C-alpha cells in the first residue's frame, strides 16, 4: 500500500522571540500570497515575546477584568482581528501558524482542527507524554487529563487558514492566572516539561512536531531562509 507522494510545503522557522505584531504581520503577508496561489502552503514556527491577545469581540469585562495585573508585569495586551477568547503567548511556548489552502484538503474545518490536535498528541507521545483531545467544542486543544497543554485558534478566509496552535513546553504558567482566557472555569494549564518531569525545550519538540504534522498533512517541509 503506497501513500500519495507528500506535497512540499515551506517551513518558516523563526529563532528566538518574535514580537507579536511582527509575527502577525508576517503571517498575514504569507496568507495573502497563499490566497493568490503565489506560494505553496507554509508553516510558521516561533515563540512570542510575552503578550495577551484579545479577539476584537472579546467582552473585556468577562475576559480581562483586571488588566493592571498584566501592566504590572509589563505584558502588553494586543487586540487581534479574530474571534475567540483572550490567550497568552510567551517564551517557552511553541507557536505554529499553518497557512494552508483547505480547498485542496476537502474544506473540512473540523477535520483540520482534528489534524492539528492529532499531530500535537502524537508529537507529545514521542516525548513520552500521554496527551489527548477531549469531547466538546469548548475543549478544543490538547489535554493531559484535565490539564491543558496546547491551545488551538484558527481563522479561515477563502479557505486559507491563519493563526493556529500553541504548545506549552516550558513556559511560565502564571500569566494564565491573570485573565479569564478560554473561560472554562476548571481549566488548569500545564507544560510538556511538567508532564514529562524533565525540561523539554523547543529543540526537543520541534523535530517531532514537524514530523507528525508532515504525517497528518502529508507534507514535507522545505526550510525557508528567515
Amino acid at each position: 500500500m503506497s501513500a500519495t507522494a507528500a506535497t512540499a510545503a515551506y517551513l518558516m522557522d523563526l529563532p528566538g522571540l518574535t514580537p507579536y505584531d511582527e509575527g502577525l504581520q508576517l503571517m498575514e503577508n504569507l496568507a495573502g500570497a497563499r490566497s493568490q496561489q503565489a506560494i505553496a502552503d507554509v508553516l510558521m514556527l516561533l515563540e512570542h515575546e510575552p503578550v495577551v491577545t484579545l479577539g476584537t469581540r472579546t467582552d473585556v469585562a468577562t475576559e480581562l477584568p483586571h488588566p493592571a495585573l498584566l501592566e504590572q508585569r509589563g505584558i502588553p495586551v494586543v487586540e487581534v482581528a479574530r474571534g475567540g477568547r483572550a490567550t497568552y503567548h510567551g517564551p517557552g511556548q511553541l507557536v505554529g501558524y499553518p497557512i494552508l489552502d483547505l480547498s485542496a484538503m476537502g474544506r473540512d474545518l473540523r477535520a483540520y482542527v482534528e489534524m492539528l490536535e492529532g499531530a500535537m498528541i502524537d508529537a507529545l507521545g514521542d516525548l513520552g507524554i500521554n496527551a489527548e483531545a477531549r469531547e466538546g467544542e469548548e475543549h478544543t486543544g490538547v489535554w493531559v487529563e484535565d490539564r491543558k497543554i496546547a491551545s488551538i485558534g484558527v481563522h479561515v478566509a477563502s479557505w486559507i487558514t491563519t493563526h493556529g496552535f500553541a504548545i506549552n513546553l516550558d513556559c511560565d504558567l502564571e500569566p494564565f492566572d491573570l485573565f479569564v482566557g478560554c473561560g472554562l472555569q476548571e481549566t488548569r494549564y500545564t507544560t510538556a516539561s511538567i508532564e514529562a518531569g524533565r525540561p523539554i525545550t523547543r529543540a526537543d519538540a520541534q523535530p517531532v512536531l514537524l514530523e507528525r504534522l508532515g504525517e497528518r498533512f502529508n507534507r514535507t517541509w522545505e526550510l525557508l531562509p528567515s
Partner: protein
Amino acid sequence: MAVASTIDVVMPQMGSSVTEGTISRWLKQVGETVQSDETIVEISTDKVDTEVPSPATGVVIEILVAEGVTVEVGTRIAVLSTDLSATPTAAAPVAAAPEPVVAAPVAAAPAPVAAAPPAAAPAPIASIEDGEGRAFVSPVVARMLVEHGLEITQITGSGRGGRVTKKDVENALAARASGGALAAPSSEPTAVAPPAPVVVAPIAVPVPAAPVTPAAPAAPAAAAEPAAAGAGEEIYTFSRVRQVTAKHMRESINTAAHVTQVWEVDLGRVTEIRGKLKPKFKANHGVNLSFLPFIMRATVDALALWPWMNAEVRTGDAVIKRYVNLGMAVAVDDGKGLLVPSIKNAESLNLLGLAQAVADFAVRGRSKKLGIDDLMGGTFTITNPGVFGSLYGTPIIPVGQVGILDTGAIVRRPMVIQGPEGSEAIAIRPMMYISLSFDHRLIDGAYASQFMAQVKQNLESWDEEAYGA
C-alpha cells in the same frame, strides 16, 4: 429594466461533520451593498472563525439570524436582492441576540438576587435565555425541547458558554429513558443558572439531603480541589473572573503597605450648587448630575497639588504621573466581580465632562462596550459604595496605583458650626465621610492628610467660577 431576484445566504457547509455554526459578526447590514465574494458575515465553529463570502452582488434586504445565534448548516441567514436599489423588507432581525448581562455601576440599585429562568417562550427562531443571556439554542434544540416537554434549565449545556446542544438534549433524553434524573428546574443553582453568590443562596437546602434517584448520572468530576459541603452548606466554585479578581486583591495587599484615613466633609455648598445645575445639565446635555463628578473634580485638583498620590511604585521607584486617569470602581452583576475603567486625562475635564464620562461608562458597561483601553492605565481611583448606605470603607488600592478614595453615604447630621464673632450653633448639615487608602511605601500620613485636607477644602468651598459647567 432587469428583473430583480432575491438570493438566500445560507449557513455554509464547512465539513462533513460540522452541523452548525454561530454567527460571530455581520460585516454587512441591512441596506448595504455587498459584492460577490466579499465577506458578508463571520461565523464560528469549534475554535475556527470563518469569513463567509457573499454568494452574489446585491443589497442585503434581510438579516434573519442575529450575532451570537447558532443555527444548523443550510439555514437561511440573510436575503440579498440583486436589484441594487432594493429597500429592506424587514426592519428587525428575527432572532435578536439577548441583551448582554447588565454591568451595573456602583450607583445602581442592588440587582435582583436571582435571575429566574424564563419559561420557554420561543422567539420565531428560538433563542432561549437562561437569565444570563447566554444559553442560545439552535432551532433543532428548541424543537426537541418542546417536543419532549423539557425545560432548558433541566439540562446542563456542554456547548460554548454553557449552550445546550443537540447532543446534550439527546443525552438528557437517554438519561431519562434509563431512569436517570434530570436536574430539577431551578432548585440546583449550579445547573444552568448563573452561580448565585453564597450569601444569597438558600441555606435551607442541604445539598446532601436532596433526593437521589437511582442511576443518577454522576456529577462531572470537578478537577482536583473538591470542597466538601456539610449539612446546611453550599459550594460556590470560584468563577475565573472571581479567581482573577482575587488575584488582583491579594497582589495589592501583598505589595502595597495599606493605610487608611477617614475625613468628614460638609457637602452643603455642593448640594446647593448641584441642585441648581442638575436641571440645566439634564435639559441642555441630557446627563444626570450626581455627586460623583463633584468629588472627582475636587480630587483631581488636589492631585495636581499633591502629585505623589497620583503615582505608581515600579520596580522599587516611584513614577509620578502628570496626567490623571481617574479610575471609577464599577460593580458588575451576577458574580462577575469588579471593573475599574478610568477616565483618561480627567484633569482636562470640567464638571460636565466628568458627568458625561461617568454616564458613558455606565452605558458602555451595560452594553459590554468597554474596551481594554478603558480598563488600562488608571492612575488614581474613586470608589463610591456610599450609595448603598456605607459610612466609610478601607478600600484596597488597585495594583499599579498608590491611592484610592472611598466616598460614604451622605447623611444629614447635627453639626456644631461657627457663627459670627466666635459664636457656635448646632445646624443640620449634609455630611459625608471620605476615606483614603494609600501605599505607605511611598506616601506618609502627613502627605496623605494634606491631600485629603485639599479635597475637603475643594468640596466645602466649591469654586463655581473654576469648576462651572
